[in-house]
């Protein structure tokens, strides 16, 4: 039971970096296109932003299977922190790679 509570709470916490990744994927290409740099959309960064939270959540569940609750929670927390760090890294890379607006 407590196992499921931990899964659900962390699913909600992972939803934020995922939401951020999805909103970047939706909003950035039109913004680039409107500014005449549509060809420079950093698709791989946008994809990392969406895929990383999902993959890290699933990986944390997989690595934690069969372990006690403390270990499961710790692994999910590590994955959550890594997901947020990766999203921030992807955003900063996108900013660094962005060509000058026309």
């Amino acid at each position, binding site marked *: 039971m407590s196992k499921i509570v931990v899964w659900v709470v962390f699913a909600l916490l992972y939803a*934020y*970096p995922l939401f*951020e990744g999805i909103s970047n994927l939706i909003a950035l290409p039109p913004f680039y296109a409107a500014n005449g740099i549509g060809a420079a959309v950093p698709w791989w960064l946008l994809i990392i932003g969406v895929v990383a939270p999902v993959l890290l959540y699933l990986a944390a569940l997989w690595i934690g299977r069969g*372990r006690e609750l403390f*270990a499961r929670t*710790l*692994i999910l*927390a*590590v994955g*959550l*922190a*890594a997901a*947020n*760090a*990766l*999203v*921030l*890294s992807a*955003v*900063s*890379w996108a*900013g*660094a790679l962005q060509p000058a607006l026309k």
Partner: protein
Amino acid sequence: MARASQPPPEDDDDEALRWAGDELRGGVDPLTRNRVAGVATPGVDHEMDAAPAPAGNLARAAATVGFAVVYLAIVVGWILSVQITGSTAADVFSQVAWQFGEFVAIISGALWYLAVLTLTPDSRAAVRVGWFALGVGVLVPWPVLLVVAS
């Protein structure tokens, strides 16, 4: 110190390394164990009392200390990184969520390090080093590195 059956008298050194009841529990006292280990490995100095720690343990300890420094650098890197990144969102929820994201990014290095430390207590050196190395790859504090590089 009453015993049901008194063992035959031995020399004092042997007696000191033996617990009453070792034989009853099927255990092997340290002195006998070391003698057996010494005989099993020919060429080993038989005068030696205890087996040396395996080389893997030393490598593991060295890696654990070495990666502590690297992860400390990662935490410092993320503290500097969140000064650079910022949210453009105006509503309170987005602001709070963004702040929380920045906070967990700061502690990501410490969390990863502690998790590897606690969850691989008996693993081989390669397993522990592998998890440490993976964390370093994932948690590179790019925001501050990109600013420094530009």
